[in-house]
């Protein structure tokens, strides 16, 4: 059971007051080669090339990168650096001008997944460009492969959607519960899991009812539905798995190590949509919400749609928008510009105005009240980590589990001294990583140096031997001496 965590104002009703809408295709789609998963695909098209909806526009890379598909039909105008909603802020994007024809690359056909082998199914999922739509954009095929290798037993579908403002999964579960269930069945086949649990926070009764109906319709008794208490961050992977199964994933392992695999409900629906129609993943449901937008709603939008187009779709800006956030208020990334494109990782566009956000006031010293420790879902003592951060004490960081921080922001939220703890910890992790890399580089350099020394010594030795040998031979072959050496 999750004991730590926060009860937060969900703000989800704002976007849920309207039904799921289909967003119009953009005049130009900007498809980033990094969809938020941290790996960059390489383009398979060049400027001037004509593409259609569903044309693969990235090369089939290694397993860590899912294929990208054109979300519109038209002409590739540009491949270049643009602002993208990832930590790096800039990355290569393929810009495709939409000719409005909506022509398809190949006629779509359903995938007969039940007759495919697991390996082929996983391959197909990668080819279909399906990644974790919960926000990590991690290739689904990789997770399924790892699950397969560890012969996992239990698939957990994450429909917790614990973060404030975001309601795309709620909208999806209400309107496409059948797809979620079908996706669960397909992914059980692919991963080899024998049972599945769809976990939903109990503040989404309509979604739970819809899933219940869908489950009754397929009468698959391997799939269970579980209502979780709405407690942020119930949807964090490790916390969710602990809540569902009562078992914790060891800190240095991934869920398959204990027979579990976790997928987002949106990912399951994307898999289902692919097997039903053959259509690859090139759109997603995104929540456009906040007091700074006229008609908050959930939109099904094509990947690469500029955020300004999504906002316009929802009636445009209103009031004084202060922040544009990709994601929710707790972990979302504040973006500099609405020209950035929708990525597969982006579950929400929060246009914050008025009192939507509560900015931090002046930072005061930590009084060690421990409210952060009470809130921390990872069982850390953020107050002690903060002390370690003040002195950048690596040993203290390790003892207090810096690496186990899930960056949920609960400690920041409750801190009476308004200390930006999460960003401090993030920075400290960056420094720790840099230190590790530096040490690795130093070790590598030393190894290279020692090898070189050994090599040079061996070479010198060989040369000396060769010289001696040559001299010996020269003496042996030359005029016979008086038989005694000069020395």
């Amino acid at each position, binding site marked *: 059971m999750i004991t730590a965590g926060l009860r937060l104002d969900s703000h989800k009703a704002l976007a849920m007051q309207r039904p799921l809408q289909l967003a119009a295709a953009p005049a130009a789609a900007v498809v980033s080669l990094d969809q938020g998963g941290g790996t960059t695909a390489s383009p398979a098209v060049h400027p001037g090339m004509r593409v259609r909806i569903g044309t693969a526009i990235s090369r089939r890379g290694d397993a860590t990168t899912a294929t990208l598909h054109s979300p519109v039909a038209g002409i590739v105008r540009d491949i270049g650096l643009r602002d993208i909603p990832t930590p790096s802020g800039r990355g290569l994007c393929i810009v495709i001008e939409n000719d409005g024809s909506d022509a398809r690359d190949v006629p779509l056909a359903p995938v007969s997944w039940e007759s495919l082998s697991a390996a082929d199914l996983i391959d197909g999922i990668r080819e279909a460009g399906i990644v974790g739509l919960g926000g990590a954009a991690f290739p689904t095929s990789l997770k399924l492969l790892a699950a397969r290798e560890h012969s996992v037993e239990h698939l957990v579908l994450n429909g917790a959607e614990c973060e*404030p403002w975001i309601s795309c999964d709620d909208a999806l579960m209400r309107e496409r519960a059948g797809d979620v269930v079908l996706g669960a069945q397909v992914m059980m086949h692919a991963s080899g899991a024998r049972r599945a649990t769809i976990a939903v926070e109990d503040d989404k009764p309509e979604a739970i009812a819809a899933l219940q109906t869908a489950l009754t319709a397929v009468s698959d008794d391997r799939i269970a539905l579980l209502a979780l208490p709405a407690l942020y961050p119930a949807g964090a992977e*490790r*916390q969710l798995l*602990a809540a569902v199964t009562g078992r*914790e994933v*060891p*800190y240095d392992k991934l869920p398959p190590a204990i027979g579990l695999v976790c997928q987002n409900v949106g990912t399951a629906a994307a898999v289902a949509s692919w097997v039903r129609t053959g259509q690859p993943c090139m759109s997603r449901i995104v929540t456009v919400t906040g007091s700074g937008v006229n008609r908050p709603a959930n939109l099904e939008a094509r990947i690469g749609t500029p955020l300004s187009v999504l906002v316009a779709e929802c009636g445009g*800006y209103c009031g004084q*928008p*202060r*922040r544009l956030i990709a*994601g929710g*208020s*707790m*972990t*979302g*990334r*504040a*973006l*500099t*510009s*609405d020209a950035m494109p929708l990525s597969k990782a982006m579950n929400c566009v929060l246009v*914050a105005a008025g009192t*939507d*956000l*509560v*900015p*931090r*006031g002046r930072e*005061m*010293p*930590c*009084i*060690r*009240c*421990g409210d952060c*420790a*009470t809130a921390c*879902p*990872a*069982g*850390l*003592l953020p*107050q*002690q980590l903060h002390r370690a951060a003040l002195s950048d004490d690596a040993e203290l960081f390790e*003892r*207090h*589990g810096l690496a*186990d921080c899930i*960056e949920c*922001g609960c400690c920041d*939220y*409750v*801190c*009476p*001294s*308004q200390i*930006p703890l*999460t*960003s401090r910890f993030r920075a400290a992790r960056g420094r720790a990583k840099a230190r590790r890399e530096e040490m690795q580089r130093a070790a590598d350099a030393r190894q290279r140096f020692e090898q070189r020394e050994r090599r040079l010594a061996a070479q010198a030795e060989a040369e000396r031997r060769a010289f001696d040998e040559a001299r010996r031979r020269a003496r042996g072959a030359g005029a016979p001496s008086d038989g005694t050496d000069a020395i």
Partner: protein
Amino acid sequence: MQFDVSTAPHVIAGFTVPRVMTQVLLALAPVGVAHVVLYGPGLLRQLAVCTITALICEALALRMRGHDPKPFLRDGSVLVTAVLLALSVPPLLPWWLAVLGTAAAVLLGKHVYGGLGYNPFNPAMVGYAVLLVSFPLEMSRWPVPTIAEWDAITGATALDQLRTGLGQRLTMQEIFAQPAFGAVGDAGAQWVNAAALIGGLYLLGRKIVRWHIPAAVLAGMAVPAMFMHTLDPGAHAGAAFHLFSGATMLGAFFIATDPVSAATSDRGRLLYGTGIGAVAWIIRTWGGYPDGIAFAVLLMNLAAPLLDRYTVPRIHGHPKR
């Protein structure tokens, strides 16, 4: 359109230090009322002297340390220190001693270590200990509570008389028949303790303090008291007497719970609180001072870093430490 950026999380609860301190001061109101009703308006003078001294010392120290005093004066922590000290000293203590104690609390107890958040000892208890060690006579003269209807102006507290009485080989009945004793504890302090208990429960209810430290302090004192009282009722007062005499409740809910100088994990806080309760009881029973809360708190303050070192809780996904 361009936007400003900030780091996640973009929303906080906004329950800031000044609001925490305001709640603590509010919770201390019943203690103040009980104090004035029992011991007369002397407390009001002590409050005025202590708060003014504390604010001046705080501002001075901050300025000397090169900080802007304003946000720190507003945070209310120095007021809590001043009020706790004012409530702890006898109401008729000469004003210059109150000034001395407060200055010691704020300057020696807090700012020499780096101010708010960095003091290893509870500042109010540092001030109290300085006064108690330097001026034991003045510090032990408490007015006789008005409800006791006794004719002396000041006298020894029940904890004092218990020590003296046991030293004179009086029986428990004889000792408890003395006017300094009330129905449960000290004739006056039992009411102050009850008021502190009410204020403390309010803080628990508002989640300003968590239960670990107060519960542990009370248990740390009650359990050995009960045990020894059961073994030898002629030489040891019972748990209820100890809980409602001296500064037990004030100590458990308001002094020991100062988070800066306490242990910080839940398990650490249980040990920390238990230590305070037990050490206070030991000082009361066998030590040289009638009440032991202040010294018990200071001693456990010393132990807090050690407790923190050995009570790091298990992290999610890690094996038991």
